[in-house]
Each structure stands twice: as C-alpha cells, then as structure tokens.
C-alpha cells in the first residue's frame, strides 16, 4: 500500500493466525480489555487476540463516551460551544479553548490584544506542564508503580490547578478564552504566583527524574517497547510528543508560529527510537522548554486590555467561509474546522482531536509485544477519552 509521491509505507507484520485446534500450541485467546478496565484511561476497549502472552491482533473500540459535541455545536451559537470545548480533553481545557477561539477569530476577523496573547501562551505552557506531569504519573501507574509517581505528579498538578481556579473560577472546566482575548485579567499577584511556580518547577522535575528516569525497572519496561517508525507516524498523521519521539521535529508552535510564539526561543526535543521510553523522555524535556517559555512570557508580558474592546461574543454572524486553525496542544495538533454560512450557528464544526489520531496506530505498536506491554504502550499514547469520542 504505497501512495504516489510519498515514501513507501512500512507496515507492521500482520497477525499470524493459526489453526484453532492446534494440539502443540493451544488456542488463540480473544480477550476484551475494557470498557471498564483500570488501565484503559476511561471507557475504552481493546479487543486483543493473544497467542500465549503475545498480542497477535488488537482492535481498539471506542465511542462509549460519545456526547455529540460536534452536532450540538452546529445547533448553538459560537459562544455557547466554548464551554463544551473544555470537556473535550478535560486535562487541557485552556489549549482547547485557545484552538477554538483562534478558529472563530480567524473566521470573523477579530484581533487579539498583545496582553491576551501573552496570557494565552502562559496558560498553554502551564497546561503542557500539567498534562505531561500527569502523563508521566499515569504511565508509571500503568507500568505497575502504584501510587508514588502519580501522587507526586498530582501534588504538582494541584498547584497549577490552583492558579487556573483563581484566574478562571474553575479548576478544570476553565471556559476562559473569548473571541478577541480572554475573560479575566490576571492580577499582578497571579502573575507573581505563576512566576514562583515556573521557577520551582525545574526543582520538581529534577526530583521526578531522580525518581524515575534512571530507574532500572522503568527502563526495562519501556525501552524498545512499542516502537513506532517515523514513516508510519508521519503517514498516519500522528502529532505531538508521539511524533517527536520518533525523531521528527515537527511542532506547530514552530511551523505555524501562531500567537506570540515566534518571540520566544525554545528548542523542540526529539527522540531517536520511537519507543515508550523516548516518549516519556521527550515529554520531560518539553516540560523543561516550557519552563523557559513561561519565564520569558512572564517577564515580557505587556500592560493593556485583555479583551479587544471591539470584540464580539454574542450574536456572532461571521461571513460565509471556512477556516481551519490549529495549535500545538500538549497531546498534539488540536484543530478546529469551521464552516460558516453567515448564520448565527456554524454550518459545520469539526474537531481534529490529537488523541484519536494518535490512537489509530495502537495495533501497529502492540503487535508482537506482550499483553502487559500493550497497557504501557497505551499509556504512552496519552489519550483522553473525552477527546477521542467527543
């Protein structure tokens, strides 16, 4: 299966199906993991065919958490969809808000004040810290390290959530971004608290890495597991840390340069092997870069309005047209595709969820691995079912 103009695609070896009653080897076992399984990060089901402990076939089944998000958005006003975007990837509501606000701003031609752009960058990087910290904790939890790494991660996450709560009024369902800016102006106290957090986060990462990065059990469980080739990753549309772990340095913050990101020098960490350990490492390094971006943004944030005075929230009727806008969410490229027919509701509203696209190659990564490793591989994909099923 090759596409003209693209390098040939390497497919993982297909399932080796044996005769059902093979007296020497025994039967294949079809196992349904989920939808209520503690390792599947929500209501997600993997139908795994096992030869002994080896995965020979894996079928991801999702849709249990489908909430009709896109259709609801097509029946309501542009503003009314904003709180629903919080509920896509409920760990990263700030970046979801931003991606949606960006789409509507481009569709209706609204400008964003500079202070709001800085605040958006600060919040997006805080979200990245929050998401990657949680992911590391969940990954270790999936690997069997019950409690300690996850609790340390949640201890730090709580500090970021406190910042979100004092700014937006809610810990997770922030509903903070608006078309043409943000809803509330961060006070000097808030910015000082964010600076303190950014300064202290490096110390936490050092502690966390001392706990995990050199840990022999973690290395044995993750190195060489769930390899993904760069070619397959690119052709499947995988984005975010998953793609960068395979060695492809693709980051929408660099490629598109949306917002005020071009003003901040930062590096894009890439992996070399594309295995679970690289995915973990890329996220840790990304967090360190995020701290650098936070420092610069908090230092340079200008005074001024947070919401454009000419911005319009209610009764928005953009000119007929379509727009696709994307940002680099913590999980990958999150995009919103909107078509307007000039009415008060979008004619078509489509989310490009990074979790769903990254999940499509789960089988390719799991074939030939043991069933216990498939849990770790799923953990390293970093899915949130709210976004996969929408």
């Amino acid at each position, binding site marked *: 299966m090759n596409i003209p103009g693209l390098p040939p695609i390497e497919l993982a070896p297909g399932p080796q199906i044996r005769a059902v009653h093979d007296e020497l080897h025994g039967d294949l076992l079809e196992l349904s993991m989920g939808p209520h399984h503690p390792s599947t990060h929500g209501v997600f089901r993997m139908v795994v065919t096992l030869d002994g402990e080896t995965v020979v076939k894996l079928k991801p089944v999702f849709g249990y958490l489908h909430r009709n998000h896109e259709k609801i958005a097509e029946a*309501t*006003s542009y*503003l*009314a*969809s*904003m*709180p*629903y975007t919080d509920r896509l990837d409920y760990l990263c509501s700030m970046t979801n808000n931003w991606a949606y606000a960006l789409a509507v701003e481009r569709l209706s031609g609204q400008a964003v004040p500079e202070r709001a752009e800085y605040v958006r960058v600060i919040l997006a990087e805080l979200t990245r810290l929050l998401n990657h910290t949680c992911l590391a904790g969940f990954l270790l939890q999936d690997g069997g390290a019950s409690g*300690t790494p996850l609790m*340390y991660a949640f*201890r730090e996450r*709580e500090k970021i959530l*406190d910042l979100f*709560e*004092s*700014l*937006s*009024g*809610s810990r997770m*369902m922030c*509903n903070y971004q*608006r078309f043409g800016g943000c*809803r*509330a*102006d*961060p*006070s000097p106290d*808030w910015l000082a608290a964010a600076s303190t957090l950014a300064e202290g986060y490096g110390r936490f990462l050092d*502690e966390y890495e*001392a*706990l*995990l*990065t*050199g*840990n*022999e*059990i*973690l*290395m044995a469980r993750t190195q060489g597991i769930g390899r993904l080739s760069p070619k397959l990753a690119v052709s499947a549309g995988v984005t975010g840390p998953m793609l960068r772990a395979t060695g492809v340095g693709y980051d929408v913050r660099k490629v598109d340069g949306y917002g005020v990101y071009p003003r901040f020098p930062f590096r894009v960490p890439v992996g070399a092997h594309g295995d679970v350990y690289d995915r973990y490492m890329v996220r840790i390094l990304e967090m360190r870069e995020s701290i650098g971006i936070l420092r610069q943004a908090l230092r340079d944030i200008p005074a001024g309005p947070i*919401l454009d005075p000419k911005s319009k*929230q*209610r009764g928005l009727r953009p000119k007929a047209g379509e727009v696709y806008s994307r940002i680099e969410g913590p999980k990958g490229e999150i995009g919103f595709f909107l078509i307007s027919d000039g009415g008060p509701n979008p004619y078509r509203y489509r989310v490009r969820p990074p979790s769903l696209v990254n999940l499509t190659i789960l089988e390719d990564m799991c074939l030939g691995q043991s069933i216990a490793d498939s849990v770790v591989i799923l953990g390293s994909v970093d899915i949130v079912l709210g976004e996969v099923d929408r």
Partner: protein
Amino acid sequence: MLGIGLLQGLAVTARNFLGSFHDPKRFVTVQYPEERTRLPEAYRNFPFLVSESAEDPMGTLRCVACQICEKECPPQCIYIEKSRDKKPDAGGRPQIYPAVFDIDIAVCMSCQICVEVCPFDAIKMDQVFELAATDRFGGLVLDRHALAKPNSYFQQVHPAEAADVDERLAAARRAAEEKARAAAAAKLAPPRPAPAPKPPAAQSAEAQKPSPPAA
C-alpha cells in the same frame, strides 16, 4: 551499576516521607470536612439571582425577565416566564419581572455565560458547593425563591466584582434621577425651543451595557 537508579528513587521517596515530619508545609492534603481551604474569589459553581433587599427578595429582584440568559445558556438549563403585570424596580420604574425562573442545576455546567451576557447584573455565580439532594427533581431544580440571594451576599462572596457592579448601578441611578429632575424642570419652566438634555440619557445607556466581570 544495576540498582543505582532504584536506590536514587528510594532516596527521593525517603526524603519526601521523612521531610513531612519536620516541615509542616510538606503536608499537601487537607482533611476536608474538618479543615477547609479558602475559595478564590473567582470560584464559581452555580448561578443565583441578585435581589436588592434581604427582607423582600421577590419584590426587589434585579431580573427583568429579558430572557437573554435563557437564550445563551449552552445546555439550556434556564426556564423563564415573564410576568403579565409590572412592578417598580430598584430605580422606581415599572418593570416586568420573572413570574417563573427555574434553573436545573443537574444540567447547569457552571460556565458563567449567563453572568457574562446579563445586561442588568441580575444573575451571578454562587460559591456554595455542598448541594447534595435526596430528590432529583425537587432538590436540583431551583425556582426563583431558592435562587434569590441579597446583594449583601454577593458583596460577601465576590467583593471586588460586587464593588464594581454597585458603582456602575449607582452611577446609572444617579443619571436616571438627574434626567427625571431635568425633565421635571423642563415641564415646570415655560416652553423653550432648547432640546431636551441628551447627555445623561446616553450615559445611562452606557452604564447599562454588559461588561466583562472582574476576575
């Protein structure tokens, strides 16, 4: 050497475990029902209706049943019926009031859009979060009597925002009074070709515009 990483990790957990014995700041958990953290001022969960006085909440609701929040509410959890008669509002003008104002807080998703779109500062976000009810329908569908809370309560939960709102409303009231006085003066004075005083009217319209709530 194999095992160094493990020992390093153990040192980290040991530091965290032993550290909590001599440094109380390391205790990050709060024993909830006995201990409570202070909620940030911006915290929101469900809306309430602001009334001017605590004694007569139904008579002094700021809500004029314009139904903008009902229209804009994303999950459509607000139900309003307009009154047939009019009651004098805080400024003394006769106004329509909500005969029925229900919010189904089982449906409400605490997004604050009703607060943002309200031009009359009549609906604000509450901070009460201990709302367990034994009855799904009676306990979680709040009518206007359950939703009404006095302005003094609003000043208590969101002091900065309430001060802002009070100032804005006071300015609007002053402008309206001035306008009424000017109109009365114009009636008393002999008819002149001079135009009616416009600026106070414009100012009052300005003051009535919705503005983004403070953090």
